[in-house]
């Protein structure tokens, strides 16, 4: 059966697209899927460092497009997972080196050998984004519970629908349960209601994501971190399993009382 192309995009930069692509690639491959992660961020490649594969790159996506190598030669195999491959972006070119038809053609060829192709889109809504969604069977939108990120996500959801790639599904990344409890961060329900979109995952803010990026070993490799578990849950949902969303910490009695007192007082902010 031909593989499925999932494009991960967001509009706004820095919300965790590449982290999500790397971790979903790892989580799906750990579940026995044949996965290729494709870095579509030409000129600003980062998926290679997230996966710790930066020293193994010989050819890249633009080399494939311009015929300097065969597609197979540009694929970099993961150090640990035999079924996980990276197709790196070019670092010294720009987004005009690739067009939407190139992406469709490359993905069509890869579909034959993989179960999942995860395309890591660049930020923004221009050519690079259009290239990234062109081959998609489904689109995952990453956002954070912040005004600017949600606004950009809404714009991108509209564009994805206009391209008939919808309905997009949402990954709400970097949620901080303590701030939600204090009323200082939008909760999942609020973001979902504003964006009118289906949720596929909630990933809590987790320092382990930063240490994982430091070492080039995504959090999904170990089941110890909350973020790692959250990405595995998304992978399971992508495979059609019904998985309940991770319980973010419920407010304790003391916190609830404090909140009540603060709310009544009203002078703190």
């Amino acid at each position, binding site marked *: 059966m031909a593989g499925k192309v999932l494009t991960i995009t967001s509009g706004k930069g820095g919300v965790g697209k590449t982290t999500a692509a790397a971790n979903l690639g790892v989580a799906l491959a750990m579940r026995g899927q044949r996965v290729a992660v494709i870095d579509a961020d030409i000129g600003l490649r980062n998926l290679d460092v997230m996966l710790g594969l930066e020293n193994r790159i010989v050819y890249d996506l633009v080399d494939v497009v311009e015929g300097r190598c065969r597609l197979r030669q540009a694929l970099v195999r993961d150090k640990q997972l035999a079924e996980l491959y990276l197709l790196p972006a070019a670092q010294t070119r720009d987004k005009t080196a690739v067009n939407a038809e190139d992406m469709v053609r490359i993905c069509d060829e890869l579909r034959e050998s993989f179960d999942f192709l995860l395309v890591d889109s660049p930020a923004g809504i221009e050519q690079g984004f259009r290239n990234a969604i062109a081959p998609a069977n489904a689109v995952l939108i990453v956002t954070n519970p*912040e*005004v600017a990120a949600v*606004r950009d996500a809404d714009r991108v959801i509209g564009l994805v629908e206009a391209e008939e790639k919808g309905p997009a599904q949402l990954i709400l990344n970097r949620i901080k349960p303590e701030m939600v409890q204090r009323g*200082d961060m939008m909760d999942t329900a609020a973001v979902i209601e*504003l964006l009118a979109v289906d949720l596929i995952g909630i990933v809590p803010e987790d320092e382990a994501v930063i240490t994982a990026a430091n070492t080039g070993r995504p959090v999904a490799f170990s089941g110890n971190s909350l973020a790692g578990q959250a990405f595995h849950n998304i992978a399971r949902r992508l495979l059609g399993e019904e998985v309940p969303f991770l319980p973010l910490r419920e407010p304790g009695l003391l916190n609830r009382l404090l909140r009540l007192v603060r709310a009544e007082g009203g002078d703190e902010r």
Partner: protein
Amino acid sequence: MNILDHLRRPRKPSSSEIAQERLRLVLTHDRANIPPGLLDMLKDEIIAVISRHVSINADGVQVTYTEGPRESRLVADIPLQTGRRRNR
């Protein structure tokens, strides 16, 4: 201030609630491609046109955009200058 006053005062919205309210407005305008500044411009022009024919309370004029499930609309609320003196 005594403690009862303190308790009775309306609760300040949390920053999360403020974010949601701001997003509701900004997404409505983004989706319709009607920037809020355009409404101000429309308002000024509506005031100018209507004032030529009817006496209106310009400070009270409101032009808002609303989005419903089936239709979206611009609503102009134009209070007239109340003519109390006329009846006396």
